[in-house]
């Protein structure tokens, strides 16, 4: 099954839209069973496990995170947060059909709003994608904030 550049771009755009529309169960389906979501703490960080990150989550934690966001006992979401991604046109960095590995790089802004507070984040997201029987899947989504090492307030939504 071949993949076009446009399909890779459309995938990244759709992924952000699912999050903004709070279609979290659909969003989880975008990951491979061993997929990871990584948000490093330091600029250019390459180590995933032996230093601190903001997030490094497998499907158990991502599923917990998604279920929690809509749970009745989730007090920090009473009232709820809302978020929106503003994406630059995703750039396809590499397409290796033989290895079934595709890299897409997307600068973004993300605004998270709750009550009268509004937090603005910006950075780059790098998708490491692979084609499975039912379509493209995320092996790794790495989100590096331009100020990843700054002192933030609560970041409750998924960027």
């Amino acid at each position, binding site marked *: 099954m071949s993949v076009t550049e446009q399909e890779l771009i459309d995938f990244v755009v759709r992924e952000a839209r699912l999050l903004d529309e709070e279609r979290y169960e659909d969003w989880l389906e975008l990951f491979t069973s061993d997929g990871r979501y990584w948000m490093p*703490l330091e600029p250019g960080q390459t180590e995933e496990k032996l230093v601190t990150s*903001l997030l490094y989550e497998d499907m158990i934690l991502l599923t917990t995170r998604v279920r*929690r966001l809509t749970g009745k006992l989730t007090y920090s979401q009473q009232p709820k947060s809302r978020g929106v991604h503003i994406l630059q046109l995703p750039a396809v960095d590499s397409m290796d059909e033989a290895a079934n590995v595709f890299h897409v790089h997307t600068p973004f802004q993300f605004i998270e709003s709750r009550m009268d507070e509004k937090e603005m984040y910006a950075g780059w997201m790098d998708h490491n994608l692979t084609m499975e029987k039912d379509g493209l899947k995320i092996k790794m989504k790495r989100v590096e904030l331009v100020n990843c090492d700054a002192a933030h307030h609560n970041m409750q939504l998924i960027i």
Partner: protein
Amino acid sequence: MTYLNNPGSVLDLVREGEVHRDLYTSEAVFDLEIQHLFRNTWVYVGHASQTPNPGDYFTTTVADQPIVMIRHQDNTIKVLYNRCPHRGAEIVRDVHGCAGTSLRCPYHAWTFNTDGSLRRIPEREGYDNTGFESSHAARGMTAVAAMHVHREWVFCRLAEKGEDFETFFGGSLSTIDNFVDRSPAGRLEVVGAPLRYVNRCNWKMLIENQTDTFHPMTVHASSAMTAKTLWEEVKDKHEGPTPMVVEAIVPFTMPYNFYDGMGIRVWPNGHGHTGVHNSIHSDYTEEDEYFNAMREAYGAERAQEILGEVRHNTVYFPNLMVKGPIQKLRLFKPISANETLIESWIFRLVGAPDYLLERTAMYNRLINAPTSMVGHDDTEMYERAQQGLRAERNEWVNIQRLQLHDECTQPEEVHSGNSEVQFRNQFHAWLKYMATAAGSIQAAATQSATGTDG
């Protein structure tokens, strides 16, 4: 109340069993805390492993003060104010760096030895016959009034006079000692940058929550119970051992009687810890490689004794929390009455296998990050309290759970894990180290300042 006109009136804010809301919400009280409490107490600066070689420095803040910790050429650690004695510029700004053999102010190129003493001024003859030798500037960078290094943990006291280090901490140093002993080499190393984040609440809400055993089953049901339920659904299909994340998060669902049984130990001067008998850290899966390294280093009996301590959260009053079995510390830096900067640092146990470092890095991001789904609900509670305390006609915060008439009188006491005794212990210390606000010298000034580099 007009605290600025009558600073001593802050001492009326603490009663037996209840404390006044102004302790959390008043900027005037906050300013007095910075001037007195955070100067009369020993405050954590950093860890010696952050400056391994001569010339290495680490910049931070203590209370409201810009501080640089630097390793001198003779290998001792110095704690200096990060201020050029000339015009006041901060001399270094990177969090970590190496100054080589001298610090150089980037404004007018004055240079200083790594102990802060003045080394060279360009065109120095310009100060001839000016009386410069007796100026403040000629003394170089100023050192803090007192500092002490305990097993590579660096603390300082900003006030000239006050208690010495050992008197201030007493038996509570056993938590730091046990933490260091958990390394087969008897040595810790800071790893990577700390998580830093800001909560819109008073610093005391954070430090009190460290020994608040009555909140996890309620506040963290959203994350921990959800994870527990999910794990029940998927564990039959899971291959291999129980994931670290599951072992870390599920104990947050434990009921009141579990936390009751954990126990709380308190020491004088506001220090105390949860997890005397057992804790949420008791049942982690450990690998043989670690115990073997510990037995090699200490002998089996001593190794068992060291690892048998599963202390949960140890509060070093006023603003440090240490977690030995998880190899981390959290520092709660006061910014304003309504704002606190939290730093979460992790450590490697030198000589121990990497899975322990992997666990502390996991715990740090899972539980104590601005992105933490556990921490989000904690922050929500602090910020709700910060807002709710604006309410009139009840100005008091209750801290009476399991209060005993003769508590906090011994060098060391163990209480029920559900007791709020550690809150009360902290407020006893608060009164003691705020006493100078009333012009009293009872608290801090009885002993002369004896800073040591021990």
